[in-house]
């Protein structure tokens, strides 16, 4: 059994191109955060700065390409464009 609060698909996250970060509402009122580059490095946990809850983000590395494009930064090597 997972000990994170929830599993959230990447399409349900909000992407902030200027911050190169995804967020998702936390039941405490703040937002779970995870950086695009961290996801590329294989991290799947998004954390809330205001409480102890965390979520697992469900995605494939290939899903990240469009967000690199949105942020206007070059694709890291390893993603097929």
């Amino acid at each position, binding site marked *: 059994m997972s000990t994170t609060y929830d599993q959230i698909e990447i399409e349900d996250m909000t992407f902030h191109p200027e911050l190169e970060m995804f967020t998702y*509402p936390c*039941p405490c009122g703040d937002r779970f955060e995870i950086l695009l580059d961290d996801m590329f490095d294989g991290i799947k946990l998004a954390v809330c700065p205001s409480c102890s809850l965390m979520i697992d983000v469900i995605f494939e590395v290939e899903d990240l390409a469009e967000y690199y494009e949105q942020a206007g930064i070059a694709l890291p090597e390893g993603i097929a464009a």
Partner: protein
Amino acid sequence: MGFNVYCLGSNGRGQLGLGHCNDVMVAQKSIVQSSDEVRKVVCGGNHTVLLLEGSGSVLATGNNEFGQLVGGPVVDYTDWVDCNGPWSTPRVLDVAAGWEFTAIVDENNIVRSRGAGPRGELGVGLDTCSGNSNNSGGGFCTVMECGSDDEVKLFASFANCVAVVTTKGGHCTVYGWGSNTKCQLQTPKSKIVDRPVVIYETDDPVDYAALGKNFNVLVNKRGEIVHAAGNLPSGFHWEHWKGVPGLQVRCMWSSIHILDLKGSRLSFGFNLHGQLLDTAFPQDMYVTDTCMGSEHGVVVVKELDGSQRVLAWGWGEHGNCGRLSPNQSDSDPTSVINDKSNEVSPLNEILVVDPDKKVKVWGGCATTWIVVSS
């Protein structure tokens, strides 16, 4: 008539209306008013909106980053703002709040929305109003105009809003808008439904909608579940409940809680933080009111001697389920600040109320609201 509003819990953006932004874990008096009654307290991620019964007045506090409360440059209100003036709406008939938005039914039976709606939460088309994020507009968008004889009720949670519109003849149309990634509004799945769509229609009027994070449940006036859609908690099959009258259905973000006529309580959904009440709740308690927050619950129970107690359970990391120690006094101002000593709360007493008072409870995102009327 008059009332006192007590609150506790998450307060990072002033959503408790206490004049500061500290989380508190002992119920604090936030509003004292000598007339009128509270009809509803609704909560977004970080804002709170309170509707008065008789006057149709609205008070609001908390995060205003997207104009979810009023127009103007104030990002966070830590004290209550009178909204009817700024809204140019002398009388509000109903109100609902989701993550970063507020919706109302005004005195002309027009449904209006304000705040941010990146997932269609404003119900007016993404192109029309959701660019409101710089707070410059400050105004309402018109979602839909209902007939002057219609009864219109609003419900919201997270990224969805639902309007139940019943004509005088008894025909009922339920509209929904916002996120549809879990088919909570309609099939097929779509990311966003940014204008009202009919999610249910009937001649057997719907009384209310109970909304979770990614699902909604409709209950008719006999207390029967008549519709459920979205990513429903596992183990909950609404067909099993079809035709069972007298149910009270309440939802946290990730769970459904059903109280039946016999006083049984059944819950379905996440339980990592003790959210499910059937595991923690003595069956012989006489419950007079129940409400759910994002991941905690609040009930009012009446004892045989008439005394009333308000209890909370579930995820209490922000102090929203109270302090576990028996010494809950608000006379010592330092002791009310949340110390995270009650993160997973058993059924816990947060307020004792005199037998002759009327008590109602509401829950927000880790906030707990208790209204005591004289």
